């Protein structure tokens, strides 16, 4: 490990992450995580989702507190706009995932970060969700993320951080690769 790691602090405990990697190599079943959310329809396009428990490290786990998220649509969709649209939450998830990755990789590589700002855009043609044209998909046809990063590193090193964070990002993977989704009624 770089001696620099001791002097820089991005608030990421890399040693804990590396330790987890070693421990999980011995007990791969503990690496199986299940993330959960529950949701309650409120009215119209407004729903409220809750996140609290999850499964991992071979046991039930719990966040320090219960988190609530309102999803809705804006007034241009004749909705009441009680929260971000579900697709905006996808961008929020991607931003959080890539930024966390950048911090972790930077810590591991001995790079002190000062600011990591991301702007995300996802574009779609809503003729898809309105069922007007079967050739047009419902979801994003393009997602663009722009990072502005201030760090004690060269431009190439910063670009490498961003590249590596995509390689290790769950949400980036979820967005770029197909996933089996099953939706059932109880």
């Amino acid at each position, binding site marked *: 490990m770089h001696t620099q790691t001791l002097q820089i602090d991005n608030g990421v405990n890399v040693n804990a992450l590396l330790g987890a990697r070693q421990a999980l190599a011995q007990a*791969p079943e503990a690496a199986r995580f299940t993330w959960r959310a529950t949701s309650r329809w409120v009215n119209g396009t407004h729903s409220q989702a809750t996140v609290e428990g999850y499964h991992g490290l071979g046991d039930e786990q719990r966040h320090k507190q219960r988190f609530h998220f309102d999803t809705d649509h804006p007034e241009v969709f004749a909705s009441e706009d009680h929260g971000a649209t579900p697709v905006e939450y996808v961008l929020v998830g991607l931003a959080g995932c890539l930024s966390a990755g950048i911090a972790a990789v930077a810590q591991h590589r001995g790079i002190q970060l000062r600011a990591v700002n991301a702007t995300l855009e996802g574009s779609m043609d809503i003729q898809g969700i309105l069922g007007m044209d079967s050739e047009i998909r419902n979801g994003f*046809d*393009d997602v663009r993320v722009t990072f502005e990063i201030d760090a004690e590193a060269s431009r*190439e090193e910063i*670009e*490498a951080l961003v*590249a*590596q964070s*995509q*390689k290790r990002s769950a949400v*980036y993977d979820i*967005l*770029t*690769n*197909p996933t089996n989704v099953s939706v059932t009624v109880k």
Partner: protein
Amino acid sequence: MSNASRRAAASCRAATVVVIGAGQAGLAMSHYLQARSIDHVVLERGEIAHSWRNERWDSLRLLTPNWQCRLPGVRYAGPDPEGFMTMPEVADFICRYAERLTAPMLTGTTVTSVHPVEGGYHVMTDGGAWRCRAVVIASGACSRPLIPALARDLPATVATLSAREYRRPSQLPEGGVLVVGASATGLQLADEIQRSGRPVTLAVGEHVRMPRRYRGRDIHRWLDTLGILDQRHDEVDDIVRARQVPSPQLIGSPEHRTLDLNTLTDRGVALVGRLVGRRDRTLQFSGSLANHCASADLKLGRLLETIDDWCRRHGLDESCPAPERLAPTRVPRSPKLSLDLGRGEIRTIVWATGFKPDHAWLHVPVFDPRGRLRHDGGIVDAPGLYVMGLPFMRRRKSSFIHGVDDDARELSAHLADYLANRKGRPGMSRSGIARLHSRGSLCL
């Protein structure tokens, strides 16, 4: 079975060491065993240098220049040190090398099983059985093509073949071709198939980009000079990952040309992301092409920076041609994410998705949960068992022709020690055998 092999099968022959495979790795090991006067036999399923002669496509030349083709005690002495050998030339080079060795080489002899027995191993072949104290596995890293599971049940209208079966474009039906994989193999096949008039789509995942020449020297000269090829397995951060890195996008050609994704784009090859899924007739590609290309460009930039650094430090900045940077890889604005095989536009899929060794005949519990051989730089996790020639096995160059020399020298020394330390001892304990022995009939 011939009379000779029937006679052989009836008895069990003995050698101190059995070397499995007569390619560069097995022969280099034979050289060092001979130098140490360790009695051994080399068993070869086909002919000497079999895979080089029979399991490569027609146009392939080595990715390493001739000057780099060396085996223990032999260097290239021909007229074109900077050139690249064709496959028949490689096979001849290895066959000539075999003539220098004195150990018996049994060609046309396929090993069907290896079992641990008291004091060593029992090696069964289609030409009889062998008893030995140690075994060196040198049967190659590319015995079985790695083909993704989604290849099963593809529409019958699409022909599929692996890079091992591919020989030349004319072997393929007319029409579009999907080449899966962007290592040296994938790029070379995409290039020549596209030139044959069959429009190619290339699925690109993680890859390693390299120019053929840089600042007046072959890239392999630089890798050699910088000591990158000599990096040892115990010197890198993550050896498991290092062993999985695909081969650099290189081609050995008389023109010393560079082959990269931009070359292919110029020729009209369509780039798509990694092949990640299939729903019925539709193949799905990852949306990660841009990042894979950006990562490879950054990595290439770091390599060229290292070379430039070296030039500066060695006062060669003036005498070497000036540094340059390659144009970034051009990624299509929106690469295709899916491809409906039912539409008939793709007639053939070529899997350039890598290879794995075939150790199905090795009945010794030395495999990790993923079926990979457990070894420490070629010293397999069972007494007297060694392996040669796997990617980054002991050094980054382990799977290269010139890489087997150092490995064979060191492993033969370890093997000699092992044999010496076991002399006069009662041999492997019964419980040791019970632990190692899986099943099968033994000749004791």
